[in-house]
Structures are given as C-alpha cells and as structure tokens.
C-alpha cells in the first residue's frame, strides 16, 4: 500500500523584491528540495529553528501556498496538480491546526459555529452540523454546554481544543499541526498533547507535527525530520534520532536543550554551533551548515583535504559539495552530512 502522503523534491522560493533604488534582492529559498513520506496513523515530527522553512513546508503540503516545484501526493492523488474543485474535494481529508489559539478563531462566531463551518462548507446541513459540533466539543474535552460561547470566553488551552475540534470534525486522514502547543502554559500543553494522542489512537489520523520544542516533538513523534535553511538535514525513527543523531546540527540542537535536571545540566559538555542560523536569501555554498559546523572544524584539523572558508579551514567537501540526504547508521536513518560517522 502506498503511504498516505508522499512529498517529492518540494521547493518554494519567495521573491526578494526590490529596494527603492537598489538592485533586485535575491530570492529566498524557504523550502529547497524536501522529500518525505508519511504513513497512515503515523506522526512525523518536523523540527527546526526560525527560518528553517518548517512552517512553509507545512503549508505547502496542504497547498495553502503554491509550491515553486516538486510534487505532493495524498491518498494517491496529486495535490500539486489538482484543480481548484479537485483540491476542494480533498480538503475535508487534510486539515490544519495553527499555533495561535487567539488569532486563528473568528471572534464573532460561537464555538459551535466555528467547528460547524467546515462541515457546512462541505455540504452538511446546518442543523446537523451544529449538532455534530456539540458532540465534537465533548470529544475534545469541553462541555457541549459551551457551544454558544465566543472565543474570548475561553482560555488559551480551551481555544486550542476548539481549533482541534474544527480540524477533526470531518474525520481527516492528515492533520498538519503548526506549533500547536507553543503558545500554551506547560500544564496546559500536556492536556493538549494527551488529547492529540487520544484522537490519533481512536481515529488513526496521521499528524505532521511542526514544532521547535525538541522534547515535545520527541514525545509525540514516530519519526522526526530536522530542517535547516530549507532542507531536511536528518530524518530517522524517533529513538534513533534522539539516541544517536548523525548530523552535527541535530547534535548541537539536542545539546542546547536545557534539561530540567540540575545534576545532568551541570555535568553536560555542550556542543555549540557557531553563530546563528544563516539566511535563506544567501545560502552558503556546499553544505549549508558549514559556516556554523563544529564537526567540520574538527575534521579539517585532522588533516583531510581542506580549504579556507568562513574564517577558518574546513574540509573541501563541506564547502564545495551540497550533501544529499542519504542512509547513515542503518535502518531508516538518513543524514545530509559528508561525515555522518564522526562523533
């Protein structure tokens, strides 16, 4: 059986525009050739820092924005080539939950109206949709008696429950969740994460879970993809990625996360990337992580063929060749690094 979702070489660049009298600015390659698959009932976590392209990728998958190149297949159908009516017919099966439980709900609609809206838009009669919306409130842990309340009468966690109810109202096969808990307090985050796990266990829905919080992503994901400047640089089953990361960027991300354990925190040797994430408007040559890569510096110091770059000496391969996502470490573990076996 084919996977639920197949993404092939997806790209999106945004025009850099023009300054008032200056030259045209370079295009921003927000998503720069990303491929992955997602199985039924599976959760793929997508992590990355600001500017990595993870949110753009989530929107491209649902074709909320148009790709510049590449293809998305969902339940065997080509999403990227679909006509507007074809896309409309797929919409009930692929939904999205947004980060901001404040901005993403229409303040003039009641909770039940918000949840019913996608149902009526797809032909469910209003009375039936409103009845089902009240049921949905119960399914996401709210009281059906809250159906007539407006978003401002709910807490942040309750609003996110409404957003989730709306997304699952039409029994989708795929939900893209873009930072669904990062605006919530920690005690409320756990409520929402448990709710999502419960929904998935009952309905078999697949999640593309986009977040910057590595602990949250580990908690929810079966597999994890790490993005850096528009590319997936590492993708592996959850335990392989967290237990034996192969890409130096993943290694430094995991090293940077502070653990709520003073003894471990103080004993930890930290592996730091140098500086900050670059710009997708001015991608480095070769491996896009090379200007920040601690591993490249170590490898060069050991005497491989090296060149002058980023103010130091780095392996020629890192500076000149763009590494492809390839098997590293066995199983389904992939990394885009010229030296994936280095510690």
């Amino acid at each position, binding site marked *: 059986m084919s996977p639920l979702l197949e993404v092939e070489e997806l790209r999106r660049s945004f025009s850099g525009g023009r300054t008032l009298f200056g030259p045209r600015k370079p295009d921003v390659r927000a998503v720069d050739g990303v491929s992955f698959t997602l199985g039924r009932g599976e959760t793929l976590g997508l992590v990355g820092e600001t500017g990595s392209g993870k949110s753009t990728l989530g929107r491209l998958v649902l074709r909320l924005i148009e790709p510049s190149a590449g293809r998305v297949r969902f339940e065997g159908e080509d999403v990227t080539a679909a006509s507007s009516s074809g896309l409309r017919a797929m919409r009930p099966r692929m939904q999205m939950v947004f980060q901001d439980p404040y901005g993403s709900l229409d303040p003039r609609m009641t909770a039940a109206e918000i949840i019913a809206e996608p149902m009526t838009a797809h032909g469910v009669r209003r009375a039936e949709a409103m009845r089902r919306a009240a049921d949905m409130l119960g399914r996401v842990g709210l009281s059906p008696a809250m159906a007539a309340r407006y978003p401002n009468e709910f807490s942040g966690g309750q609003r996110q429950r409404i957003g989730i109810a709306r997304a699952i109202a039409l029994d989708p096969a795929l939900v893209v969740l873009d930072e669904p808990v990062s605006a919530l*307090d920690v005690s*409320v985050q756990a409520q929402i994460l448990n709710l999502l796990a419960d929904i998935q266990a009952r309905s078999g829905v697949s999640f593309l879970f986009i977040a910057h919080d590595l602990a949250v992503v580990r908690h929810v994901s079966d597999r994890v993809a790490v993005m850096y400047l528009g590319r997936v640089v590492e993708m592996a089953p959850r335990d392989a990625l967290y237990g034996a990361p192969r890409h130096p960027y993943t290694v430094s991300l995991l090293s940077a996360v502070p*653990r*709520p354990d003073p003894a471990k925190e103080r004993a930890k040797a930290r592996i730091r990337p140098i500086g900050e994430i670059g710009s997708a408007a001015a991608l480095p040559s070769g491996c896009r992580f090379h200007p920040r890569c601690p591993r490249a510096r170590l490898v060069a110091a050991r005497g491989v063929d090296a060149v002058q770059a980023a103010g130091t000496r780095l392996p020629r391969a890192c500076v000149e060749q763009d590494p492809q996502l390839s098997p590293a470490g066995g199983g389904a573990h992939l990394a885009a690094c010229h030296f994936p076996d280095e510690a």
Partner: protein
Amino acid sequence: MTAAFELRGLTAAVPGEKGAVRLVEDVSLSVRAGETLAVVGESGSGKTVTFTSALGLLPKPGRVIAGQALLEGEDLLALPPEQLRRRRGARIGMVFQDPLTGLNPVFTVGEQIAEVLRAHLPISRREARDRAAALLGRVQIPDAARRVDDYPHQFSGGMRQRVLIAMAIALGPRVLIADEPTTALDVTVQAQVLDLLGDLRASEGMGMVLITHDLGVVARQADRVAVMYAGRVVETGTVEEVFRAPRHPYTISLFRSIPEIDAPAGTMLAPIAGSPPDPARRPPGCAFAPRCFAVSDAHGCRSVRPDLIGAGHFAACHRQGAIEVAA
C-alpha cells in the same frame, strides 16, 4: 551577608468591580550578589508583575499596596520618582523577553547605549560611543567597533538581545532582572545567551533574577528557585532541593506535566486539570486546591490560606510531608 535585592511582603493590586484585585500577594524573595534566583510560574502567576511592581513600573491603575523592595538595603518603593528612575538602569538593570521592542529602530545601537551612559554619567559623546563599543565587545558581539554604528534591524534576534544586555549592564548594576530573556530565541541561540548571562553574573558579581517558565533553563542556570502560583510564592529553595524533592503539589505536578527529552519512550504526561484562577476569583484557602491531587478538606485546603513553611526549603501547603512519599 545582606541581600543585593530583597522583596518583603510585596503586594500589588488593580481596582476591580468588587474592590482591589491583588495581582501579587505578600511576595518575599531575595537574591545575593553573584547568585541567580529563578522565578518560575505560568502566565498570570504574577512573576513579571512582582518585579515591575518592585521597580515602580507597574502600569496604572495598578499600584503597590504593601511591602518593600530593598536594593542593597534601600527601599526603592519609598524613593521619590526621580530618584527611583536614577536607580533603575544605574544600580538595577533589566532585560525583557522581546528583543525587538526594547530598541528604537531609528537610532544606531551605539547611540542607544551611549544615551543610557550619558543620562547617568558626565561624559562626552565621543567617550560614550567608545564605551558603547567596548560594551558590545563584552557581550561578545563580533566586530563590535564596526557594528556599534549599525541599526537594530541589521542584527539578528540573538544579537539584539545581546545589545539589550549591554544596555542593562552599561552602568555596572548590582542586580540584573532578566524576564524571559531567551524565550523568543531559538534553542542554540538561547544557549549562547544563557552562557553570556552566566559569565557576566560571575565576572561582575551581580545578583541575577531570571524570570522564566522553562524548568530546563532553571536547572541549567539558577542557584535558587521560587515557584509562583496565583500571585504567591508557593515554594522556594535551592535548585537541587526543589528539583530533587519538590514539596508543593503544584511544583510536583509541573514536573510531571512536561515532556522530558531523556524520558523513557512512551512515558505518559500527567497534565494539571483545569487552568489557574482569575485573580479576581481566586478561591479561599489555597489557590491551587481546585487543581490539587492532594487536596483535603480535613486539612483546611479550601478554607485556610497556607503559609510558606520550612527551613531553607519552603513550601506553602497544608499537606506538606504527607504528600512527598506519594509523589
């Protein structure tokens, strides 16, 4: 040894429909020179209001109705507004969460740091600019002598936060209050900024108050921690004590509700049911009672407000001792 900064019984309120609504109540905390005190709590817990109140920065109509804020023994809240203004910035520095809003986009970062210096010191423009460049070097901005003439939009988020830290330490304050200084930053940049704050605290011997919601940041960075809930300190102690053997059910529940990056796979999260109370509708007795796993009417949880009790490690809970084993 006296504290560098100490709050005693600080209570701040806003007018409400049925009388004053207490945003923070009877908060007592202290931080010594060279020490980091973390103040943790969720939104609405009062962790930010506590320190804006202590510095006379609580927006109207909020006001402090009781308590003292002692900076090296001097009560800031008893000072005339002009003197208080001069203490802020000079002897007590502040860094806030959002590095964009703290900087003025139409002035260079050097001009903005120089302005802080010249407001307090009789120095020339030239000298202020040189000192600004030196400060940018101290917060490890590469090529500081050139970047001093750049505008805020030419800096990344992490670099802007470094500029704000440079402004906060420009006059050699004894205490630095950092309110979620790394929350808006990516994790690798967060780590760099936390390292910088730790280095500055050590080299300047400042007392540091780190306001955060992230228990990982507390474990990494702080010596002592105060946990706030519904406007009060509910637990305080050394980081080792509080993380090894939390005593307040709220603290215990917080630890159980966060996903840990090293936890065995498949660990279930135990969320805290419900949400924190509205300040105008806090329950009588313990404010955490409606969400508490150990609540007991026989112990007065719903009727009597618990005091902070302990020696070194304090908690405000009627069931202290009885619940630690169960937890």
